[in-house]
């Protein structure tokens, strides 16, 4: 019983500092959003911020609606443009890694640099900045994020399954619709998540490409936290709404995320 207490090195203990770090700098900050959402202008506690947002008094709900529409259109365009890219790459250039890389490369250049470059070109072309230019900028920015997961799943499809359906008499179109597309669904879902959420919550792209005419949800959140507006309460409510959207969309993601990220 009188054994001297000896320090015993346990590998498990290595996780504890990081767990403390996660709680302090990831969980607690998220709780801070929740708390701030209930703090009203007069430093009282109540539902005023929620009422203000959901009654659309400041137009926040309208912005959310518009963002969801623009996010949806952006995602759809990325899918329609990106799927054939990923499909042709997997079909004809499966071994050409450099070509695949060419489609992913732009995403490593800071998005502000790319967005400002496109804006300058639009201005030089005398195009009016507005919905069209914003949509172009969004698709331009998020297309690689759609192509990458699509390509990952399409390349990993077992070729024998495609041959089998051909042997069983399926036409080329049928093979595509009934064999390849269903097998690529995890990539489609993953691509949609990687495009949709950033598309509605980003700020700066729409601001730059529409000279602040078009506000997306991210721009609106940013505005509420700026010095001039200083309405942290409503901004927090909007951040909570965004968080709920993130969680809901991630429930749909079935593809193992590590798999996609390992290619990055």
């Amino acid at each position, binding site marked *: 019983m009188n054994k001297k207490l000896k320090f015993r090195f346990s590998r498990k203990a290595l996780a504890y500092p990081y767990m403390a770090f996660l709680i302090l700098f990831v969980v607690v900050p998220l709780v801070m959003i929740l708390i701030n959402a209930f703090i009203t202008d007069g430093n009282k506690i109540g539902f005023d911020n929620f009422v203000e947002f959901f009654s659309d008094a400041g137009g926040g709900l309208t912005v959310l609606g518009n963002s969801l529409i623009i996010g949806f259109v952006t995602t759809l365009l990325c899918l329609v443009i990106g799927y054939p890219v990923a499909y*042709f790459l997997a079909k004809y250039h499966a071994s050409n890694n450099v070509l695949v890389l060419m*489609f992913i490369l732009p995403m490593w250049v800071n998005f502000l640099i790319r967005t400002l470059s496109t804006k300058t070109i639009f201005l030089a072309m005398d195009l009016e900045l507005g919905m069209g230019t914003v949509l172009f900028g969004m698709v331009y920015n998020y297309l690689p994020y759609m192509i990458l997961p699509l390509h990952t799943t399409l390349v990993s499809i077992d070729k024998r399954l495609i041959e089998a359906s051909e042997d069983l008499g399926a036409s080329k179109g049928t093979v595509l619709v009934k064999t390849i597309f269903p097998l690529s669904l995890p990539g489609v879902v993953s691509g949609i998540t990687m495009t949709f959420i950033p598309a509605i919550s*980003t700020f700066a792209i729409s601001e730059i490409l529409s000279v602040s005419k078009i506000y997306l949800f991210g721009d609106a959140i940013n505005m509420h936290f700026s010095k001039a507006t200083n309405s*942290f309460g409503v901004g*927090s409510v909007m951040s909570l709404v965004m968080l709920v959207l993130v969680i809901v969309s991630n429930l749909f993601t079935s593809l193992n995320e590590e798999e996609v990220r390992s290619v990055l």
Partner: protein
Amino acid sequence: MKQTKFGRILADGYLGLVLALLYLPIALIIIFSFSGNSNFRFDDGFTLQSYLSIFNSGAQTEMLLSAIKNTFVLAISASVISTIIGTFATIGIYCLNTKLRKVTLVVNQLPMINSEIVMAVSLMLFFAAFSQVFPSSWARLIISHVAFCTPYVVLSILPRLQKMDPNMYEAALDLGSNPFSAMIKVVLPYITPGVMSGFAMAFTLSLDDFIITQFNKGDTGIETLSTYIYEDARVKSLEPFWFAVFSIFFVVVFTLLLLVNIRKNSKKEA
């Protein structure tokens, strides 16, 4: 047979078109960075004026250089710290019991799946509430960057660790090594590739970040490259100065990535 060939030509045409669209803005900026103007015309012929303006634009030059310096100081500190924290944390997480491990990994996922702006806002509110504890903007920036980079480090090491034969660690113990040196001499060398790719990922993520930095840089004027670009170039159209800076960026980023990937491919084949 002929039909397949035709299909392939169509497919390549489509791929070429999308590539052209992706690279057109970039190519135009690079080409006209040699015009000395920002009107996309070679009024003054071919000139290096834009590139010279990087060095003789007074305050703008100073701001740019300090922004580049800040960006790298932040990215290096954040990625080194996240790699150290992440490496030890992953070994610990691997040894946790299943339930605790699952919970930790779910929380670890939060910064990855979360929308950047929500994470930025949450940290900003946190630092505002505890401003006495975190008075320095540098500390805030480094902490926020470590918070969003470390999860990627953990997830790039964990698969490697799971592949490792646990008997190797046991064997080291049986051969008389104490647990600590067994970890340093056996486990650590084995997971080194994961550690390196985790570090590379943390470094690039931090380098590229805009939203989280923008919300947490405070009033002390720490501008990184992205926040400085946003402050300076968002309202006006791009000046020739920025044409040159962006062109250098495109070329540096693309060359580095192509080199890295070509090396990776040749290694695979070897």
